[in-house]
């Protein structure tokens, strides 16, 4: 038996559809936990000052927040097994307050761990091949990927082997762990970008050339935060065998020349903006040419080893459409709504991709209780080969469900408040934690998301509006990605008052654009009114099948501004 076969044999009920640690990965993560345990001890003994401890705890995902520490657990490329999801639930119960928060970077955050407990939490994660390595700090962060990897019909190649390859390469990198600022990499292998690669420090798009070879379009210098930029192409087609060398070249240029005099100008996007993409490309190419690339020459075999773990699960041969599904939809309108909104096409006939919304009406976007996590783990085992995904929209995906099983799945999810039929709709809001949790925030985010969600509580109205992405950030660091929301909301503080700036026209896909500011800020109470006016105007103006952003692009920003001005005259103080 090969090593891979042995691992399958150890888990008879679950096929291998994601990376499994070998002895080296397992040892590495244990060593990391032991190191952190020692670092905590040395912090408490005074051997490390808080200033010295800080980067090391951050590189293990531990932040000091407004009320407590926050631990951010990595979910590499957003893929989770049922066993891992159960462990996240157990940790939430034992060391936190019984819930966790899924983030826009496919991580999970615990908001109430104690410093002294964190080594034990990390140990519990290591048991199930998880960690919190490089979910924070000025290093290469957890690599994200398309949450529909391996199942989307428009896929050229599964991006997860690339992401895992990069996870290993970037883990505790000797040279690149004290960068000017954080560094985020996202990978997509599909024709539609669901990983927002244009707004990452480095975005990788897998392409196939005319000769059938796989390579990467490399985009650099995208980012949100206080200075949003759409990334620029630094490599048109980097062959796979050169990928790590090319990335090392980018990292070395950034590590040496990225600004360190001002933390707000330290991201690579500012370097690219100030020097210009041509100068950066020349520097990267020169470094690439000068480096010893022979150390990477054996990587294709390693890549293949990693890729072998992401084999498709043993699908059954099924008819393309399920008669059981059609019958159940006719019988149960609520279920039919769920299927119409939250279920999308799978590359295999008879299968479906299910989005489980973590945005119940009036709820906290991205939060899941330990009970809900266990229901999700059960659901994935019963109906989805034991596999789950976390999307950057802060929802959970069951990537391979038989259409015949959708009704049974819905009945399992419904009592756990996991069947909200709003995936992609106006109440599927992305939001950062905001002032309720975060020490950086200047305004609340979650209550704004809740208020908007309640305003649009009528689900039939939501379906009439259709797909519409609202994204909310509680400060200019833009963790809620407001710049790329069709409607973006940014919470600021003006003279001691919360003030919300609305932007329109953001787009996180290949056609990326940064939203434009609509006008002066509004109060928290006014936000739902403003959003409602904008949506109503869109409904009145849109052409058949036209998305919000397309209407906005067609008729122009000024028309939307005019609406608000008129509304202002009608009494709303905008």
């Amino acid at each position, binding site marked *: 038996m090969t090593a891979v076969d042995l691992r399958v044999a150890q888990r008879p009920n679950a096929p291998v559809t994601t990376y499994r640690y070998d002895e080296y990965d397992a040892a590495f993560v244990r060593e990391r936990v032991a190191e952190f345990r020692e670092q905590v001890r040395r912090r408490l003994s005074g051997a490390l000052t808080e200033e010295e401890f800080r980067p*090391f705890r951050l590189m293990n995902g531990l932040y000091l927040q407004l009320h407590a520490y926050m631990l951010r657990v990595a979910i590499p490329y957003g893929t989770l097994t049922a066993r891992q999801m159960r462990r996240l639930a157990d940790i939430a119960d034992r060391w936190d307050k019984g819930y966790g928060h899924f983030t826009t970077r496919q991580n999970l955050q615990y908001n109430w761990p104690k410093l002294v407990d964190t080594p034990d939490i990390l140990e519990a994660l290591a048991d199930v091949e998880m960690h919190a390595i490089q979910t924070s700090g000025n290093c290469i962060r957890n690599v994200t990927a398309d949450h529909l990897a391996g199942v989307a019909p428009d896929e050229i190649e599964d991006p997860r082997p690339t992401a895992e390859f990069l996870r290993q390469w970037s883990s505790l990198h000797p040279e690149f762990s004290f960068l000017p600022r954080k560094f985020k990499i996202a990978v997509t292998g599909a024709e539609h970008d669901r990983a927002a690669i244009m707004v990452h420090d480095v975005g990788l798009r897998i392409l196939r050339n005319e000769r059938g070879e796989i390579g990467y379009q490399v985009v650099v210098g995208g980012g949100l935060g206080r200075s949003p930029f759409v990334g620029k192409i630094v490599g048109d087609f980097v062959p796979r065998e050169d990928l790590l060398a090319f990335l090392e070249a980018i990292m070395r240029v950034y590590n040496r020349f990225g600004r360190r005099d001002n933390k707000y100008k330290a991201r690579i996007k500012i370097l690219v903006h100030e020097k210009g993409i041509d100068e950066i490309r020349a520097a990267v190419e020169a470094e690439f040419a000068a480096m010893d690339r022979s150390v990477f020459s054996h990587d294709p075999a390693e890549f293949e080893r990693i890729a072998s773990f992401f084999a498709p699960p043993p699908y059954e041969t099924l008819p393309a459409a399920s008669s059981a599904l059609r019958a159940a939809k006719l019988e149960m309108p609520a279920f039919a709504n769920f299927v119409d909104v939250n279920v999308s096409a799978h590359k295999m006939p008879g299968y479906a991709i299910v989005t489980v919304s973590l945005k119940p009406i009036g709820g906290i976007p991205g939060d899941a209780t330990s009970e809900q996590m266990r229901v999700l783990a059960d659901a994935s085992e019963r109906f989805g080969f034991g596999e789950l995904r976390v999307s950057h929209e802060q929802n959970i995906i069951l990537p391979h469900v038989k259409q015949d099983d959708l009704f049974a799945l819905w009945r399992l999810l419904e009592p756990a408040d996991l069947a909200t039929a709003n995936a992609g709709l106006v109440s599927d809001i992305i939001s950062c934690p905001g002032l309720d949790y975060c020490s950086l925030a200047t305004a609340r985010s979650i209550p704004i998301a809740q208020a908007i969600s309640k305003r649009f509580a009528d689900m039939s109205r939501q379906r009439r509006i259709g797909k519409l992405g609202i994204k909310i950030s509680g400060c200019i660091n833009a963790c809620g990605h407001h710049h790329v929301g069709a409607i973006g909301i940014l919470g600021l503080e003006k003279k001691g008052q919360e003030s919300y700036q609305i932007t329109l026209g953001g787009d996180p896909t290949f056609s990326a654009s940064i939203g434009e500011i609509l006008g002066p800020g509004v109060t928290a109470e006014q936000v739902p009114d403003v959003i409602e006016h904008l949506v109503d105007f869109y409904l009145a103006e849109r052409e058949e099948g036209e998305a919000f952003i397309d209407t906005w692009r067609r008729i122009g920003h000024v028309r939307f501004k005019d609406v608000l001005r008129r509304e202002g005259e009608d009494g709303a103080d905008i």
Partner: protein
Amino acid sequence: MALISEGRFVEDSWRRLADEEALPKTGGVIVSLPRLEHALEVLGTESALGVIVPNTTEPSSLIQALPRLQLISISFPAFSDGRGFSLARLLRRAGFKGELRASGRLVADQYSHAVGSGFDTIEIPEDLAERQDEEQWRAALNVYAMSYQRGYTGRGSILEARRRAVRS
């Protein structure tokens, strides 16, 4: 200042020459970068010479001097400023075989990063050495058996180990 080499606090055989001090004929001193050219002219090839450089130094500016230098000390203005790691790597790539020293408030937890990037020794202020004793520095070298990166010094590579396992 305390000097760490191979996990131990050791005596420093080098002396940092203050800019106002005259250059000793015997060498064995570390001069600042602005004095390097003069020192190379004045000292014979048999006298040991070292230089301390800022972490923003362009490696090509040192290429000519590399064969004459026994030591290059790279200053770390802050422990969180990682430019020195890349500079060390570039100097090794340029063929520098002498002692590479990291000088600044580096903490023990960065020791393996420094060694991995090509440093031999770390020079830290006394107050830091009091808090972070020899035991912590030694322990820091032995936390990880192997690393994921290849082409960096110090530890075995996981990728190489996997290849060996496949072959056997």
